[in-house]
């Protein structure tokens, strides 16, 4: 059926004539175009023009399917399944489960085609009363499962991107290594006294050995352990807890720890006395004292004294060397070489 032929039963416009027309369908299964719906309820409460059953504005939904009957069934099914949400686990035998399912289908069929509605509704109410607890429990289960699913998806995404990253990193590493190795080779050829052939040979060996290591390193750089909530058979692990913001650290042995290497300040001169002993050594007699306000703000004469002494001692051992490059040459280098300081 071509969508363009859809007609509003009331005003008889078609999608062809008014392409913006949207058909809304209600609980009774009959369709009305949007403007007719508004018209209907502008005059107060409305009754369906075809079957005359009482309608509520809320219950009008945009028609999803061409056949309004289908829409009706979908709607009813949704409503019913909200109540009848038992799962296979709730039944001791498969037969019982199937019977239950058939019962549900019957109910839905009856409601859609308006068969024996009073009885059916009574059945529904009975069921509701009897199975209130199980229904509740299953509802909770459902929402939790939804959350878990979402998280699993996210974790999978993260894992994928992490994998991609690790590959990129591994590649970069490899490139770096290659570059380093090449440089090393050139350096050796330039500076070492050994035979050129042997240098090249040893270099080739070294690269081969390195190549073997690469796949190992790449494998180790894999992603973190993703927290899964289900064993592969589908059974859940433990109680659902609030995930903390922190992932357990991946068990990598070769994570580079931050080694604090105290900056070695080579003063290139005799060591100045440490700031803590300046007072004891009576330096402060020879320096302007800090006044009260300055001291309150954290300034002490020890600081400027210390600095002056550091500057004085620094460089006393200096031996003249030529460190100079002509500026023009330096900047010409820089156009190609970004590593110049």
């Amino acid at each position, binding site marked *: 059926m071509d969508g363009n032929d859809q007609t509003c039963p009331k005003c008889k416009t078609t999608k062809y004539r008014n392409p913006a027309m949207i058909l809304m369908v209600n609980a009774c299964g009959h369709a009305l175009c949007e403007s007719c719906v508004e018209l209907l309820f502008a005059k107060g409460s409305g009754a369906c023009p075809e079957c005359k059953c009482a309608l509520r504005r809320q219950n009008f939904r945009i028609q999803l399917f061409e056949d309004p009957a289908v829409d009706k069934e979908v709607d009813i099914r949704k409503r019913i399944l909200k109540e009848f949400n038992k799962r296979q686990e709730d039944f001791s035998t498969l037969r019982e489960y199937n019977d239950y399912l058939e019962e549900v289908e019957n109910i839905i069929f009856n409601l859609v085609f308006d068969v024996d509605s009073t009885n059916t509704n009574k059945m529904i109410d009975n069921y509701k009363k009897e199975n209130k607890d199980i229904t509740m429990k299953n509802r909770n289960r459902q929402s939790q499962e939804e959350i878990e699913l979402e998280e699993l998806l996210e974790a999978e995404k993260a894992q994928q991107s992490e994998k991609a990253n690790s590959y990129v990193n591994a590649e970069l590493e490899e*490139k770096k290594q290659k570059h380093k190795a090449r440089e090393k080779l050139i350096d050796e050829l330039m500076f070492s006294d050994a035979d050129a052939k042997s240098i090249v040979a040893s270099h080739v060996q070294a690269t081969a050995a390195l190549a073997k290591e690469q796949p190992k390193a790449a494998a180790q750089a894999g992603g*973190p352990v993703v927290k899964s909530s289900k064993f592969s058979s589908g059974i859940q692990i433990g109680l659902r807890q609030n995930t903390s*913001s922190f992932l357990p650290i991946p068990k990598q042995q070769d994570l580079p720890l*931050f080694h*604090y290497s105290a900056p070695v300040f080579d003063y290139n001169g005799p060591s100045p006395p440490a700031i803590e002993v300046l007072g004891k050594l009576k330096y402060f007699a020879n320096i302007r004292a800090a006044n009260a306000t300055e*001291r309150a703000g954290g300034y002490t004469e020890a600081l400027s004294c210390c600095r002056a002494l550091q500057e004085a001692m620094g460089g006393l051992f200096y031996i003249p060397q030529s460190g100079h490059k002509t500026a023009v040459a330096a*900047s010409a280098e820089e156009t190609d070489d970004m590593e110049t300081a």
Partner: protein
Amino acid sequence: MDYDFKVRTSVERTKVEDLFEYEGRKIGRGTYGHVYKAKRKETFATSDINKLISADQKEYALKQIEGTGLSMSACREIALLRELKHPNVINLQRVFLSHTDRKVWLLFDYAEHDLWHIIKFHRAAKANKKAVYTPKAMVKSLLYQILDGIHYLHSNWILHRDLKPANILVMGEGIERGRVKIADMGFARLFNSPLKPLADLDPVVVTFWYRAPELLLGARHYTKAIDIWAIGCIFAELLTSEPIFHCRQEDIKTSNPYHHDQLDRIFNVMGFPHDKDWEDIKKMPEHPTLLKDFKRNNYQTCSLMKYMDRYKIKADTKAFHLLSKLLMMDPTKRFTSESAMADPYFQEDPLPTSDVFAGCPIPYPKREFLSDEEQDDKSDSSKQQQQQQQQRQHASQSGNSNHGHGHHPQHPSQQGNMQGGMHPNYSNHPGHPQQQSHPQQNNSFNQRF
């Protein structure tokens, strides 16, 4: 024109736009100028095959300094950066000068992340009850590297003076993955003896929330302790995702260092300092004003312990202990960077790592590009809303008065699903000149990488 002249001027005239591709890739905007994400153009002539093969694929941050020629602070920044070399301090690669329009360009290594964005990300995730996967030692590693960088600066008698999360950059994927870089030395100074009280030259310096109490009380001389206080504030913010001394924006143009609201906030968190806590407080220039404005009794129930307890940081943890030593009110009692680095907090498991992300995937989004038209919205009445599912895609940026790849405050957009309690995020923070990015939906430069 003779050949020699040509050669010379061609070297001098290496134009930044010839060497780098940066058009349409702006990532920061502030009073200092613009910052772009730049990549080398491959068109420069070199016959060196090896150089071509290992051609520089690195990303750079290109900072264009506002105004023509060199201001004193630009000169200072260049002079200082040229001398510094440390893994945790941003590295100035090169300087470009354009003779014709007298623009100055600084080339830095590109850092994908910074603490401002990272903390914002965590705050939003917290508000929406989402989990963020980060290594347990991340905060510790961050703090350690910040202290290391500052220790280097202080040993060279340089004070940063403007430490805040936006100035702490973190490298993204690459060789220096997860390394902290302290940036924006626009306010940095060589520590001087009191011959030159620094407060006279730059009365408005550090962003208020990270300003040490002695500055707020009118101290005339800047010391290393001021940087340490800022680091303490950053540490607290990393632990709780909230700026610890958050306070509403005040008029930053005033040269008066005394700020009542900021002090009030500090006392609300730390409590009012006892005499024995800070004996010399009486000698501070603004002490009489302090006595007039504040009553000790109002803060009797306030203490750092109580404040951190609300965020589940217990007082018997090493983290808390270190924090309390960084946030001592009396500057002479405050930890130095050396003593902080020697603290047992860093010897306790988990140990800090040189990659703060510890090899784990980085959950934070990459930087987004800004469009050229930006509205300057300084109103702090516009409440910014954080977007839930947009978090991962649209980390928009706030304008900032410093290089650290500046950022823009979130544009107020109307996204419907804000369940889960709106987090009382902060309105435009003071000290960051507010500039809003063009609503992102219309931003043609808004590329995701």
